[in-house]
């Protein structure tokens, strides 16, 4: 069987009170580190095969813009996953939020920032409503968000056709075009300018990442969200207002979805109903690849970024290699499966190693 270890002098008395040494799994079992390595390796491979992969303006800039948006989408999913729920309406909430931004610019003549605020408020409101329904009725989040998805699927195009002629807002407030195309290269500190590969919309992603990292790793509310996800009954009995935490998580999810919708609209330049149509799968993919549990109670904020980046890099690389759309998805599936099983293998191997040294 396994390595049989008989400790030397096995008849000497061992400490009887909790004085056993702490054994932690080694650092390389870290899922995020694994993702990072995978991303770097894949980028190097693609770069070697197609040097154009490292073209800052034509390849990296759009890649990072997509990654920025999809990371926020993954974060929107991660927040609800943290309480053991899911949000099937991320895409439609993004469209809902984006509608209000477009409406603000077109009808109310709002400046760029106020439109964004309106968009976020709309997202938070629809998310909070969803959370409130779940908390009040106790119906599974899957069902409620699915219903919400259908409701918004009908509502958003109705709103657009009521307010616009050709189902899109095209009015662009001052600053929108710059936001769309500018990169760190446009921001200079004296003679040193940033990289033209990093789009300016990435600032929203960085803010969202920093905010959520603070929330989950440092604050009381973040911990309460996690415990609500880990065991709702025990959380309630430990004095956590679980109902309010559910509403909060969904409101946050709605806000982040709306932010992603805004970023997607900035990317294409128009506010239309089809924004967010393809958000749902990436939202789960990024979060789960990054190490967030579907069952609640554990999240990884950086993981959402890395997971999304991995998917983005693979897509872009295969695209450059001239792989057709269908085969691209097959390859993508294989690589993802590999990434997840590699993680499992690492955990098992290291577990054995720690066990052997005990």
């Amino acid at each position, binding site marked *: *069987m396994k390595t049989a270890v008989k400790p030397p002098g096995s008849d000497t008395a061992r400490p009887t009170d*909790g004085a056993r040494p*702490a054994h932690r799994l080694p650092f390389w079992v870290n899922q995020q580190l694994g993702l990072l390595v995978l991303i770097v390796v894949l980028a190097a491979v693609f770069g070697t095969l197609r040097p154009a992969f490292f073209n800052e303006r034509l390849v990296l800039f759009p890649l990072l813009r997509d990654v920025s948006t999809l990371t926020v989408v993954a974060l929107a999913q991660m927040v609800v996953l943290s309480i053991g729920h899911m949000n099937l309406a991320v895409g439609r909430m993004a469209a809902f939020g984006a509608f209000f931004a477009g409406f603000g610019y077109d009808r109310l003549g709002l400046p760029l920032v106020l439109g964004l605020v309106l968009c976020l408020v709309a997202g938070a409101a629809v998310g909070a409503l969803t959370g409130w329904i779940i908390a009040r009725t106790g119906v599974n989040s899957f069902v409620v968000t699915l219903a919400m998805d259908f409701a918004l699927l009908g509502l958003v195009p109705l709103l657009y056709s009521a307010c616009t002629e050709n189902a899109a807002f095209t009015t662009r407030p001052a600053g929108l075009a710059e936001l769309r195309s500018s990169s760190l290269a446009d921001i200079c500190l004296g003679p040193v300018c940033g990289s033209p590969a990093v789009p300016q919309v990435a600032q929203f992603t960085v803010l969202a990442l920093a905010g959520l990292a603070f929330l989950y790793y440092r604050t009381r509310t973040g911990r309460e969200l996690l415990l609500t996800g880990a065991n709702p009954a025990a*959380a309630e*009995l430990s004095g956590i207002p679980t109902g309010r935490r559910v509403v909060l998580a969904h409101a946050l999810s709605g806000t982040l979805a709306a932010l992603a919708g805004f970023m997607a609209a900035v990317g294409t330049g128009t506010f239309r109903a089809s924004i967010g149509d393809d958000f749902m799968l990436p939202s789960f993919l990024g979060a789960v690849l990054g190490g967030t549990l579907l069952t609640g109670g554990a999240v990884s904020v950086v993981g959402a970024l890395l997971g999304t980046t991995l998917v983005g890099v693979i897509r872009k690389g295969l695209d450059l290699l001239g792989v057709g759309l269908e085969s691209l998805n097959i390859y993508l599936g294989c690589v993802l499966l590999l990434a997840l099983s590699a993680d499992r293998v690492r955990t098992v191997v290291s577990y054995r190693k720690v066990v052997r040294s*005990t």
Partner: protein
Amino acid sequence: MSDVLLECDSIVKVFPGVRALDGVGLTMTAGSVHALLGENGAGKSTLIKVITGVHTPDDGRLLRRGEEIHLRSPLDATRAGIGVVHQERNLIPGFSVAENITLQNPPSRRGLVDRDAMTAPAERCLAELGLDLDPHRPVRELSVAQQQLVEIAKALYTESQVLLLDEPTASLSPQEAEHLFDVVRRLKERGTCVVFVSHKLEEVFAICDTVTVLRDGRSVLESAPLSDYVQDDVVTLMVGRQHSVTDMTPRTVDPTARPALSLSGLNTAAGHRDVSLDIRPGEIVGLYGLVGAGRSELVKAVLGLDRVTGGEIRVDGEPARIRSPREALHTYGIGYLTENRKEEGVFLEQPIVRNITVTVWKKLARFLGDISSRAEKDVAQDLVDRLGIRVSGLAQNAGELSGGNQQKVSLAKWLAAETRLLVVDEPTVGVDVRTKHAFHELIWELARGGLPILLISSDLTEMITLADRVLVMADHRIRGEVPNDHDYDNMSGQIIRIIHDRAHPAAAASNGTP
């Protein structure tokens, strides 16, 4: 003593940081009841899990009638004639009692599960345990003790040659446990080997004939006849040194003090009628009753988890409307140590720090709601030390601790909160002798320091050790009150008389109505 059914030979099981089993042997002979004893974390449950195919041993052999066997899954073990009741509940809440009992081998007709054929065997198993339960009720609606009995019935249904019972009596009252012992004795006559884990040594000495004692993953006594030992010897073997019980400093309660919590004529949606009780500062009030008497439900209603339909709750003399456990904790300073640690007590997949500090985050939070992890660790470490919780680090998940240590973690959270009233529901379920004594001292000292405590327990000895007076509950009503004179025979006689006076007419009445 020759017919050996199953034998463990120097079993080793290692978890990260812990050698849970380190060369343990166990011989299971037909027609015997084998006690498996040891302190919390000694490795009893781990051994049982190895025998039932839940864990694969890292070394050692498992012999069935002299032949080596390898169990790859719990199903393999069931097929090999090994039945088990694990320490933690493993029922499917949404399934009915009958479905749960027959789960491992549901009666079927032409490949389809036959629901009607389930009822009869389920009723037979329940009747053996003297349990009058509707087999069609979903398990979710049952109390902890009832679930425990259903779990035992489930093990009886498989009719195994070797039956392993991991703390089956932990949440049962003596009356219910007695039924179980009758069953165990019958099984023994039929030639079954029953392995019995318990921290209640009186029970062990009443029904067991062989004993194995584990300490820190090793056997310090292997398959020895129990009649050669007395309780004190066994305790010394488990603890590793002389264990002496010190008398507790006397405590006095001022009977004129204003009650910290007072219920008067309380009616609830769960069915309580006219419940009145007072708890004064520094007083330990015991609430005793049989399975299903409604003790935990009463507390949950008071904490706002169920509807109070009449009567009045006063906290420190002021009328109170408690809407949630959160309000109970933060506004009224009431803590509730739940009886059901797996479902309601600990967060199994979360680190110990969070499990302990959850009730004090509000106090620790700074301006932005952020919590210094240093402060958090200090609080947790302090309690881990105070209660002697056996952990390999504060970041360890609570689910990896032994049952007794999990219980300590769920108590630690309420001690951290420094509540003004503490409700403890079965505080020493699954806690070993030494720790139980430490728990009792702790509760006693808390009360001596002025903390009012409501003690719910099915352990009569515990009641008589701790409580100042014992309220007896049956059928959701308080049936009587017995001031504690610390004389076991007298007290148990009085309490049982109160229960039986009422239980009989009540049972007859409930049988009359469908």
